[in-house]
């Protein structure tokens, strides 16, 4: 029973990622696309966690932490690009 529920939630996560990819492609402005990318990262984390419960293994916990770190840095970089127009400053003005 629990395995069926986990499998069903994996299917729903896949469907959610597909819907979010639609927003990623169609989204009229840049902030919506950035938010869609962040949400896809969270869905991937949830998928890996549910899969770890499904196969009763702790081997993929580093993957969760790594996806979280990369999604965090990517979101910061995109936010800085939208806010200032440049991602990495060569020399700070202040």
């Amino acid at each position, binding site marked *: 029973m629990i395995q069926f529920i986990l499998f069903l939630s994996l299917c729903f996560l896949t469907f959610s990622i597909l819907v979010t990819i639609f927003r990623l492609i169609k989204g009229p402005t840049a902030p919506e696309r950035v938010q869609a990318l962040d949400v896809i990262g969270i869905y991937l984390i949830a998928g890996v966690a549910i899969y770890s419960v499904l196969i009763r293994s702790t081997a993929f916990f580093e993957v969760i932490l790594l996806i979280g770190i990369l999604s965090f840095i990517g979101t910061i*970089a995109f936010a800085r690009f939208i806010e200032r127009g440049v991602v990495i*400053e060569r020399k700070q003005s202040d």
Partner: protein
Amino acid sequence: MKGLNDVILRTATKVVVVIILAFSIHLFVSGHHNPGGGFIGGLAFVAAIVLLFLVSDIEKVRNNIAVDFKNVTALGVLISVFTGVGGMIGGKPFLNQVFGSVNLPIFGETGMATGVLFDVGVALAVIGASLTIIISIGEDR
């Protein structure tokens, strides 16, 4: 560009960078039997440096890390190739690895493999190449 307030990002980075660096070392050490190894450990290290680039600027980080990253790439590839050639000296194939058990003073009986040296080279090559690419792109206007 002045007047933008990013106190939260600067304060969070001081903690998060340490966590990412420790996690990269954990990923590097836990290779061979778990997810990890030289490549992904080097990429996590690069992620920490990129976070420092984002909250600060390139000049400040380059002044504090006084290493030319192109030399790091060359050193890493050199270590990897010499580790691979080391197997050919004993008549074994290229990239042959030896696994042995060494009695260390504190840790006791510890298994050590020469593949770790190869992973050190891979990690250095990945760190140098990625940071060279990021700095080259970031400095271009």
